[in-house]
């Protein structure tokens, strides 16, 4: 794994200001990347310092008793059922990648739209058959990608499982899946994709990724 989210994006994530679609991509990378986890933890400390040092507001006199009432007489709960290391993505596709009902969108490329509605990002799983490619495109805004399986290359580099890629309107690329296995990606796109190749351009009005 050699491509990581910028510290800037990790700050948006840890401050809670990133929308759900983008945050899901960041989380999926963090699940696999020790180094980025460490940066994210440092950034949580930044948030903690700010919260601790900011002004305090006085609370209603009865707030503590209202909290106690809601605790009832029950003891603190045992550790939650969420097991350590469980994947955020698995809560959206409990049957795993094998169970995804792919929809074919072009030669060798299928997609599945994840049920995330955050008002900004369109979030999809994309499967590119080995050796096949996605039409050359650019973006009007942001495209975040995490590679879940296999690998691909484009004009900007070569990527393998776990890699995190951030693209915007300054990038024009044509991803080609590596030949050894199908490539599966998690992608969050804000704004629109614009196809730029000769054939792809014809698709602009037709295809919504």
């Amino acid at each position, binding site marked *: 794994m050699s491509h990581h989210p910028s510290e800037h994006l990790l700050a948006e994530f840890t401050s809670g200001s990133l929308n759900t679609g983008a945050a899901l991509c960041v989380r999926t990378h963090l699940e696999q990347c020790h180094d980025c986890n460490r940066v994210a933890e440092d950034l949580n400390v930044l948030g903690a310092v*700010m*919260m601790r040092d900011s002004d305090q507001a006085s609370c209603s006199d009865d707030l503590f008793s209202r909290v106690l009432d809601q605790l009832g007489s029950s003891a603190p709960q045992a550790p939650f059922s969420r097991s350590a290391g469980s994947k955020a993505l698995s809560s959206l596709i409990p049957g795993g990648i094998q169970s995804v009902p792919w929809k074919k969108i072009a030669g060798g490329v299928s997609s599945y739209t994840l049920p995330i509605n955050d008002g900004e990002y369109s979030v999809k799983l994309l499967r590119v058959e080995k050796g096949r490619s996605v039409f050359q495109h650019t973006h009007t805004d942001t495209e975040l990608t995490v590679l879940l399986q296999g690998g691909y290359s484009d004009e900007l580099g070569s990527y393998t499982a776990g890699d995190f890629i951030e693209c915007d309107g300054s990038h024009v690329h044509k991803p080609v899946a590596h030949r050894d296995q199908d490539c599966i990606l998690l992608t969050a796109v804000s704004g629109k994709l614009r196809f730029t190749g000769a054939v792809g351009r014809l698709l602009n009005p037709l295809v919504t990724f």
Partner: protein
Amino acid sequence: MKVMDMAEAQQLAGWLDAVAADQDKAAFKQLFDHYSGRIKAFAMKSPGVSGSATLAEEIVQETMIKVWNKASLYDRSKANVDAWVYTIARNVRIDIQRRNNKHDNCIEVDDIWQESDEPGPLVQLRQRQLADNIRAGLEQINPEQALVLKKMYLEGKSQREIAEEFNIPLGTVKSRTRLALARLRLLLQEKEL
């Protein structure tokens, strides 16, 4: 400069341990007294709350109930109490904002913004030093850059919302964030040398 001393950090962790082990309500009251005013001020600033004391106190309640419920999950080798409580309060705030925006998501906030499960010895000590160094660093960076970080962390505002608030280009907000983090990182490295 406010320096969080060792004794205070130990005391907070001790209270949390007492809640986890004995459901100690006196210890919980101490934690409540320490955090409730800070969480309320933090909550008041978030866009979804728009200054409503009632809603801010709901965030305080929900956060403190989670502190009680999750106390047994707290591991002092993984995070200091301040950072742990911050992540819980942040998640409650994200949840409230989502409800306000009526965004129907099939994924829970805690599934994405979960607390870390990276084990790390000495994290407690490291994070405490880090907190002191960050505090010192924040006083040294350019105030415009520090303000952007405050808007993000304390008010939960996106880069776009910050750009709109100050009527500056999105690119300017992004570069201020980048510069602030780079400068902070540099100051931290100097301290570690």
